[in-house]
């Protein structure tokens, strides 16, 4: 066994997320890695809601099909999830539920929720009673829970009192059990983030000063967290404008005036932004755009996951225009790549899209915030405050030069130019001169080659010269990697390539790797195999063996394992 899985389910509004969060932090405190995903309907109150926690000795980023311990706050949880509980597993349930068909290989433990609520004269405490009982049955000391609760509820002392009391009662109501049977790591400095949180943290560490966003699942939390941050961060302006077109154009205005600017949305909102992405490219403005994919088209499945927007974001704009598209493969990379996005945007003055999806944006992983990218964000890249040396005869600043990427900010003496969406001369004047047009196209498009040289090349993971090479990107990467490891321990010869930089694309490295592969299998969470199409376009290599999924659900490791075995 490489992970211990706890699932907690109940109705929306019952504090299921809080229970999951408490359990996660207890295990993190004990030195484990935790991966936590959630599943919910597009309904605020009353829908069935569950969180799954995978506890492990090493970092993980995907779910499996088994559950070791089920915390069932309601009968729906029992009905829907009992079949996943392993032999020898345990179901803790609210004793007011009637259990119809019991599974003989599973231990059922009723918790007297109603009695406890009456005794303590409190409602809405079932979630913490369950947590208390669960950790006792896993042989964890109450003190660990107590200190985790104190950390989480440190601003709400009265609530902390009530919840701690409830958790303690739950703890006392339970027999002490055995542990989860996995060794913990050192009690290291692991942080617990979801993709949204890691992106927000990355943006802050990169010195973001302006964020404009119109709410949209799955990335609204970025807006919420930055808005909260801006209360005490005087350098950060956060605004919720009238629509996504306003959001991106405000961000472009702020960027032009010197802010480090970002916007975030999902595919629908990004559709509205498309024309302005081109403006950023043409006017050469730095901008970070977070695109959190969910299944389309139109409103699609608003709370589910899919990798369906890759082709779209790659070609989102009229004409040939330079932009960068980065697809982080896990929560750790959401952090690092957001920072990289700010750096590339500012240095090369163009839009950088960070492409994530619901699964990545909303599931939590233990990550390290250690500086994997060595960039000093206290300095500005390619911004000058003395433009005297770059004056043209007409007294304007040579903003759009073929040789460098220097810009002034408005307010700079001798730094005047026009920031232009029309084709323009080197000072930004409107022009239709074919020679200037050619030069400007080369100047703008030439950025991609330079950026490609700065980006780490894709690497092969697993055995060299393997029988099968798995190709994937984004949120499916963790599941694929786990399958590669599992197949490896079974003696199967397999490896994988995870594509992170979609534009610019490392054509020759990818061609090198894939042309040596014996059999290539493409794995994507979409209908048409969009990465496959990109690889075909760039390298000429046609990947015709695919595992594609587009039902709104992510791959579980077990599911993927079985599908790959069938392809062997």
């Amino acid at each position, binding site marked *: 066994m490489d992970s211990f899985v706890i699932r907690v389910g109940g109705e929306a509004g019952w504090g299921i997320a809080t229970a999951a969060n408490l359990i996660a932090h207890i295990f993190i405190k004990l030195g484990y890695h935790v991966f936590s995903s959630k599943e919910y309907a597009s309904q605020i109150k009353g829908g069935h809601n569950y969180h799954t926690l995978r506890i492990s000795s090493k970092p993980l980023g995907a779910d499996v099909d088994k559950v070791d311990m089920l915390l069932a706050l309601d009968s729906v949880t029992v009905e829907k999830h009992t079949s996943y509980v392993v032999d020898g597993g345990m179901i803790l349930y609210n004793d007011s539920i009637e259990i119809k068909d019991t599974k003989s290989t599973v231990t059922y433990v009723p918790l007297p929720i109603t009695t406890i609520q009456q005794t303590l004269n409190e409602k809405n405490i079932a979630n913490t009673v369950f947590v208390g009982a669960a950790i006792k049955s896993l042989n964890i000391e109450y003190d660990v829970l107590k200190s985790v609760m104190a950390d989480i509820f440190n601003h709400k002392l009265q609530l902390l009192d009530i919840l701690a009391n409830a958790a303690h009662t739950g703890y006392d109501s339970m027999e002490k059990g055995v542990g989860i049977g996995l060794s913990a790591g050192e009690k290291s400095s692991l942080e617990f983030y979801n993709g949204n949180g890691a992106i927000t943290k990355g943006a802050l560490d990169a010195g973001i000063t302006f964020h404009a966003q119109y709410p949209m699942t799955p990335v609204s939390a970025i807006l919420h967290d930055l808005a909260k941050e801006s209360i005490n961060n005087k350098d950060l302006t956060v605004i919720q404008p*009238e629509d996504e077109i306003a959001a991106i*154009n405000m961000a472009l205005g*702020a960027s*032009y*005036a010197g802010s480090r600017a970002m916007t975030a949305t999902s595919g629908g909102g990004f559709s509205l932004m498309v024309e302005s992405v081109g403006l950023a490219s043409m006017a050469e403005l730095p901008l970070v755009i977070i695109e959190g994919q969910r299944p389309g088209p139109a409103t699609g499945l608003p709370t589910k996951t899919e990798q369906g927007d890759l082709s779209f974001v790659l070609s989102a704009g009229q004409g040939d225009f330079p932009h960068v598209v980065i697809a982080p493969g896990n929560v750790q990379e959401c952090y690092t790549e957001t920072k990289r996005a700010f750096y590339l945007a500012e240095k090369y003055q163009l839009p950088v899209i960070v492409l994530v999806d619901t699964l990545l944006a909303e599931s939590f992983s233990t990550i390290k915030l250690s500086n994997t990218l060595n960039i000093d964000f206290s300095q500005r890249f390619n911004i000058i405050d003395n433009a005297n040396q770059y004056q043209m005869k007409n007294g304007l600043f040579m903003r759009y030069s073929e040789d460098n990427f220097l810009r002034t900010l*408005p307010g700079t003496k001798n730094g005047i130019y026009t920031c232009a969406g029309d084709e323009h001369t080197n000072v930004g004047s409107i022009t239709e001169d074919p020679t200037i047009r050619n030069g400007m196209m080369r100047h703008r498009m030439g950025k991609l080659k330079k950026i490609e040289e700065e980006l780490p090349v894709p690497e092969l993971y697993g055995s060299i010269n393997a029988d099968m090479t798995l190709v994937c990107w984004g949120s499916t990467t963790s599941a694929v990697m786990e399958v590669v490891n599992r197949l490896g321990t079974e003696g199967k010869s397999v490896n994988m390539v995870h594509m992170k930089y979609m534009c610019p694309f490392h054509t020759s490295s990818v061609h090198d790797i894939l042309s040596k592969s014996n059999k290539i299998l493409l794995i994507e969470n979409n209908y048409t195999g969009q990465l496959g199409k990109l690889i075909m376009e760039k390298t000429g290599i046609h990947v015709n063996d695919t595992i594609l999924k587009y039902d709104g659900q992510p791959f579980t490791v077990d599911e993927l394992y079985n599908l790959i075995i069938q392809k062997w």
Partner: protein
Amino acid sequence: MVTLEEYNSTEKPTWCPGCADYTILTTIKKTLTELNIESHNAVLVSGVGCFAKLPYWIKTNGFVGLHGRSLPVAQGIKLANEDLTVIAFGGDGDGYSEGGNHFIHACRRNVNITYVVHNNGVFGLTTGQYSSTSTMGTKSKSSPRGSIEVSFNPIAVALASGATFIARVYVGNPSHCVDIMKKAVQHNGFAFVDIIQPCITFGKNHEYYKDKIYIVDEKYDWSDKSTAFLKALESDTGKIPCGIIYKK
């Protein structure tokens, strides 16, 4: 002292000879000069239309973005650096159709910028289709039997949306334009100026406006919103009141 020359560009405008946009160009230069704003501290933001080329032809910081989107850009600039004097430009097509949503919400948001709309009642750059401010029945290439839509009333919309400075001027009275424009730029909050202008190539000429345009008299109380609403609605009946219509 800032001089008018400081704002002179070496580029030559390509508007039709006699276009009212030349007058607006001069109005903006005079406004900035007379308010003693140094050219590197001003930013002119526009979208797409004939009007939108104005920033190319004044020597100051310019941002010529997309059709209908000057307002969000201008607000972003001001939020990023409040020391800049930011003037956004729109056209009746650009600002009232394509960017109509931004107009409503910029009025509500009250960011300290000036918004100037070149209202010529026609899509100039796309060669003369009727626009949202064309009078009902206007015949054009895209409305050969006459437009069937009620004319958009920007002053009333700005009032209803909470703008704190609302004015209208007629390009045929350049000194009044400069006078009002200076007050708009000095206003602390979102200042909106609708400039009625002929389009000598595709739209109405000065003759058409001559008897309709008048400047509100000195007794007019622009601080009262209900009075201002009545004034705003006058343009639906044929007369076009100019001057400050509302100021908070």
